[in-house]
């Protein structure tokens, strides 16, 4: 099966320190892929490269076969029009009411079709379990969980084909994290989208992943199904899953569970 998003040999470094040292990754249509890894292993850098927010130094990113590394601004704009992103902190625009945040991608930030856009925003907010009254509030007036829901509504409003989630449950209590995970899964299934989530949260991984990839030392060192997480056959994955120290570094570059 051809991957919707195919990443090969992706490299990115900062001040001479390689963060991504040749990442290979496939994201298939209607698949929920979760990338796990310790802090500082480049998970967020990977997503920012896939969105064109950071320029990789080498490698290949193909979206339905079209090369994006080295592509011009218009090609990236067209690619990003098919993507949505939920940022770790929400990244809601403080200066705009919730409903303008939600419809931002539909208007590219212009103040047009106010009545229709407000109605659309209320419908999108309902999809993530928020009341219409929330539409006129400012992001600063919302709780952390409500901000995540609004950010999710904003990410899906333009019906993207690929959704990226950066630590979607960080800072939330377990009940709210569970609710956000279910929302993510429901929306991804409803849209028929592919999803790439980066997280530390193993409970979250088990709830939303079809497939899991482990990022370490700048590379994907293991991929497998959620079921394979319990017997991954890779010391770093075992350490991550069971939170136990590793006594031997596994020399195999990639293993598939």
């Amino acid at each position, binding site marked *: 099966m051809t991957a919707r998003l195919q990443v090969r040999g992706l490299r990115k470094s900062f001040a001479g320190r390689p963060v991504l040292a040749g990442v290979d990754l496939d994201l298939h249509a209607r698949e929920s892929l979760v990338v796990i890894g310790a802090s500082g292993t480049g998970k967020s850098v990977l997503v*920012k490269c896939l969105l064109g*927010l950071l320029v990789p130094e080498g490698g290949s990113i193909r979206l339905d076969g079209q090369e994006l590394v080295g592509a011009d601004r218009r090609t990236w704009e067209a690619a990003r029009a098919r993507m949505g992103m939920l*940022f770790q902190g929400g*990244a*809601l*625009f403080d200066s705009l009411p919730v409903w303008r945040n939600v419809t*931002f991608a539909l208007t*590219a930030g*212009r103040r047009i079709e106010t009545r229709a856009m407000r109605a659309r925003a209320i419908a999108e907010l309902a999809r993530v379990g928020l009341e219409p009254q929330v539409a006129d509030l400012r992001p600063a007036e919302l709780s952390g969980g409500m901000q995540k829901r609004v950010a999710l509504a904003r990410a899906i409003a*333009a019906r993207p084909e690929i959704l990226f989630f950066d630590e979607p449950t960080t800072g939330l209590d377990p009940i709210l994290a569970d609710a956000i995970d279910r929302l993510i899964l429901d929306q991804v299934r409803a849209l028929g989208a592919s999803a790439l989530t980066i997280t530390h949260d193993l409970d979250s991984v088990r709830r939303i992943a079809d497939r899991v990839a482990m990022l370490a030392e700048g590379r994907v060192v293991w991929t497998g199904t959620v079921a394979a997480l319990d017997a991954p056959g890779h010391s770093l994955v075992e350490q991550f899953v069971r939170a136990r120290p590793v006594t031997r570094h596994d020399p195999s570059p990639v293993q598939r569970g």
Partner: protein
Amino acid sequence: MTPLVTLLAAIGRGPLTLLADVGRMATLAATALGRAARPPWYLVQFLEQMLLMGWLSLPVVGLTALFTGAALAQQIWVGGSRFNAESTLPAITVIGIVRELGPVLAGLMVAGRCASAIAAEIATMKVTEQLDALVTLRTDPYRYLLAPRLLAATLTLPLLVAVANVIGVLGGFLVATTRLDFSAAAYLSGTARYLEWEDVRSSLIKAAVFGFILALAGCHHGLRASGGAAGVGRATTDAVVTAFVLILLANLVITVAVFGR
């Protein structure tokens, strides 16, 4: 590295950093204006910025002009009386206000108010990933954030300076007619007789340049911010300092270019 090389490197680092900063600001300005030439255009953001920079800066700019014009008139009268030149008070006041003090003081006051605000807003958006969010939501930050601010500041400052010039002359008028025995008619005719179109033109050109500079300094330092709240604070301070220095430098360059012959 020998101590001599270390010393030379330390001396050279400052000018190199400054030149690199100026280069980055020029590139930023060219990119923002180039992108602003093509749609989508953000008229509402542009008008909002004009309101914030123009209307809301009017009280502070007006008070500054009023007090400075009044103090200037008093000083010119005291200085002029040393060689029996008190009658030149209206002419020197209006030339001083229109050519120099009006645009420079308005530029500095608006820079203090708006360059810092622009830098703080954009820096906060940067460190909270709102700028990245803009890009992922099909919106070009250059068009959405930078172009409206640059254009609004460039067009608003001349209007503000025109008002400041009038208020500054009014400050001189009030001191001259209430404390220095000038008649209103004599003061106003002295003001009108010596004010030339060249003075007004240079004042408005300076204002437009200062407006562009202060918005550019705010945008530049806002976009380069990093490191959370501390980074936002640094960006704000750097924006004001850069705007002040560049406004004073530009004032010298324009003054020499227009009146230096």
